[in-house]
């Protein structure tokens, strides 16, 4: 799940029209925090900030791209917390099986 939100945020950053602040800067800041999940350097403060970001970006972005990025992170944190915690500890739980075709589908 951590990989999926990372991918989602990269996608949002690359495609954000940059018109609104939450999508333009917020998804970048989330991206920066999410990267820290992988090397375990993320702090509790940053996890809680990630929650706040997700909530705010999901609700206050101008269009669905930013809203979806926010909501994706929000749901991941809500429903796949185990997997993310496992990542932070350095042991990937893979609570959601990797799907090799997913990227290809999304990028079309």
């Amino acid at each position, binding site marked *: 799940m951590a990989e999926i939100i990372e991918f989602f945020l990269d996608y949002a*950053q690359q495609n*954000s*029209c940059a*018109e*609104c602040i939450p999508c333009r*800067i917020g*998804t*970048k*800041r989330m991206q920066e925090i999410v990267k820290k999940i992988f090397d375990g350097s993320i702090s509790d403060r940053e996890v809680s900030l990630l929650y706040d970001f997700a909530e705010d970006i999901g*609700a206050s972005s101008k269009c669905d791209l930013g809203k979806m990025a926010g909501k994706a992170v929000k749901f991941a944190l809500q429903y796949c917390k185990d997997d993310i915690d496992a990542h932070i500890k350095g042991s990937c739980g893979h609570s959601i099986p990797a799907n090799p075709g997913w990227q290809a589908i999304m990028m079309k």
Partner: protein
Amino acid sequence: MANVTLTIDGQKVTVPEGTTILKAAEKAGVKIPTLCFLEHVGLRHIKHDVGACRVCVVEVEGKKDFVSSCNTPVEEGMVVRTHTPKVIAARKLNLEMMLSDHHLDCPTCPKNGICELQAICAELNVRQIRPQGEKKDFPIDDSSPSIVRNPNKCIVCQRCITACKVLQTVDALELYGNGFDAVVRPKGGLPLIETQCVACGQCALVCPTAAIVEKDDTWKVWEAIADPKKHVVVQTAPATHVTIGEAFGLPVGTDITGKMVAALKRLGFDAVFDTNWSADLTIMEEGYELIHRIKNGGVLPQFTSCSPGWIKFIEEFYPDLIPHVSTCKSPQQMLGPIAKTYYAEKKGINPEDIFVVSVMPCTAKKYEAARPEMNAASKYWNNPNITRDVDVVLTSRELIRMIREAGIDFASLPDEPYDPIMGEGTGAAQIFGATGGVMEAALRTAYEVVTGKTLPKLDFEDVRGMKDIKEASVNMNGVTVKVLVAHSLGAARQLMDKVRAGELKDYHFIEIMACPGGCIGGGGQPIPTTVEERENRIKGIYERDKKLKIRKSHENPEIQAIYREFLKEPLGHKSHQLLHTHYTPRGKK
């Protein structure tokens, strides 16, 4: 139009269909904070509501997400909450995000104290910046003599794009790139000076931060004043007479002429002159040029040439129409060479030592003074040590800063008079500061010169006011002279397309001012310069005109003197040497 009733923070309010939540809230006495929204960009019909900052978000019952109130129309029965904890938290976090990508050197920032980003953070009680991370890092663009761009302060609100593209139709700026790396930049990523930018500064007036500001030349003036060898003279544009006071707590539009002169003397200038004087000179030259064109079948309609933003615009976009433009220099560029010739002679000062400073409402005037051909005094004396006709141009904002730096208590200064030789200005010159003013001043003189009669009524009401395009006609000895006035370059473009299509053949004279409202709305004026400020300054301009003893340029005794003693006659040899110019076709080949 149908009415819509909704509830805002528990209050019922009824507004016409199509009203935004923001406006409806205002009616209910609820203030929703905004940052990127601008109700009028220069003119009443130009709105900026792209919804970029997300500071104005509110909760609407039944909707999962927030909506931005600045651009969401009301719906029947809507229930809106403007300051729930969720909304307040979202506004703060949106601002924190913005600040996390902002070079926060507020104490040394040119916008310190008049920055809208600072103000909104204070208003919304933002006390921390939780998100941290990469910050954008772009080079500062100071390629233009008028404008400095610091993209690191840009919050991508795009107000400048609306000003440049919709109001001015110059379209020199663009939002480029995606996501975090996006930036508002001159088209094609070029330095601003290489684009079609006309240096009007309307972008700087609306920029909420210091991402676009005027180039600060105050230090050059401090140094010149301190140099004992230099004889530093200063001229003040008509629009400044009713604006400088704003910054010192006086009501917008107050006539502060006498106080401004006193302040300039205290700053240490050797002589304080009035651009109103050279505006009267412009009227003589330009009025005679018009009469000459009408009598001799010259190119008509004649266009005014006082607004350098407009001059760059016609050079860029309508080079084929350049023959219509009056060859007269602007008042600023008339006073410069006269200071270094006529005045220098009369006072026995070496023209090399004369340093001319202008105080202008305009950023484009900096560009104008820097134009290579503006060195008439040097050519006149055949002396390369005399460089520019006008050495430094200060905007109103810069003069205000110098007055503050010097610790002058502006509001309590006594009135002092301008210095003789180039200090007398008439009411006709005064109204140059407002849209329609040059036209009205020209008509006051042309009518009397052509008919030999005294004008029954001096006020040409038809060419006054904030309407984009205005029209009037006057009968002079059986010829009906038809004139048009436009302000803002969007309106100028409408007229130019018609001239190009041959539709305005029976018009004689067209006045164009690049800035909305004319010079009082110039890109160098105090911030804010809203439509209301523009209107109040215009009122101040016409009040001062009414108060002045002499209200027609040709009756100015100092103008009569310079023709008697030096120029001999309008459009004469010396006039051509010093007061007339030529233009350069530019634009995409």
